[in-house]
């Protein structure tokens, strides 16, 4: 049984909020966001390999990584504005395919006790339009994937 993820995108504000609980202590959840060997095991879309050029989570540090899939490469980079162990990471996020469009991401790690943690993510985009574009692009791909799954079902019949 998986914990539910709550995603909120308020109508008139350029935010996305993502909240998820984990059955693991806050130190482990934080470490999975900091140790590049762990990060590349989970971050990014399904089916993509993640190559990390740099992942230096500390106040004033920075990162760059590349998601690859079938020879396509998507690179992302940013800086860590602040990193407070087991509490907080604030970083910038830029897709190198859209240079200069930078969002600010805050990850808050909340110790719920009993070895449980709530991760609260908050992204601020340059505009509501940018935010919507990102969600709608995801939706486009999702519809195509849905059709592919339908196709597979039809073929199976």
């Amino acid at each position: 049984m998986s914990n539910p993820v709550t995603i909120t995108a308020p109508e008139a504000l350029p935010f996305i909020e993502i909240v998820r609980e984990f059955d693991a202590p806050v130190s482990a959840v934080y470490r999975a966001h900091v140790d590049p060997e762990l990060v590349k095991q989970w971050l990014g879309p399904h089916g993509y390999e993640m190559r990390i050029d740099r992942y230096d989570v500390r106040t004033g540090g920075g990162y760059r990584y590349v998601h690859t899939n079938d020879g396509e490469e998507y690179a992302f980079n940013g800086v860590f504005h602040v990193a407070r162990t087991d509490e907080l990471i604030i970083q910038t996020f830029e897709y190198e395919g859209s240079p200069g469009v930078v969002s600010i991401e805050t990850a808050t790690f909340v110790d719920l006790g009993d070895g449980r943690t709530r991760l609260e993510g908050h992204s601020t985009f340059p505009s509501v339009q940018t935010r919507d574009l990102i969600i709608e692009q995801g939706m486009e791909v999702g519809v195509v994937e849905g059709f592919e799954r339908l196709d597979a079902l039809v073929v199976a019949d």
Partner: protein
Amino acid sequence: MDDTELDRAFLALADPVRRGIVARLSRGPAPVGELAEPYAISLQAVSRHVRILQQAGLVTRSRDAQRRPVHLDPDALQHLTAWIDRYRLDHERAFRRLDGVLDDTIAKEERP
């Protein structure tokens, strides 16, 4: 939602303009004029797209005489959410992988 309705909904969503309209309506109701803004097509063409979405049971139009805003039908869309909401799906999958990473690290710590 039975298979026929699901087919109709997916056919309705096979068009990029109609997907754009649904995406816009997911943030709140809007009159046809506003839905037409991002597209270089006539108001009539947009009305036709809305009618197809309506017949697929994805949107409804209220009786508000002047504006007659178009509403997304949340029940109908809920059935499609698992198919279309890739953004959510990407995060679900990433977080499930993170669950796995956390299980591994906790298991390693517990070993002597």
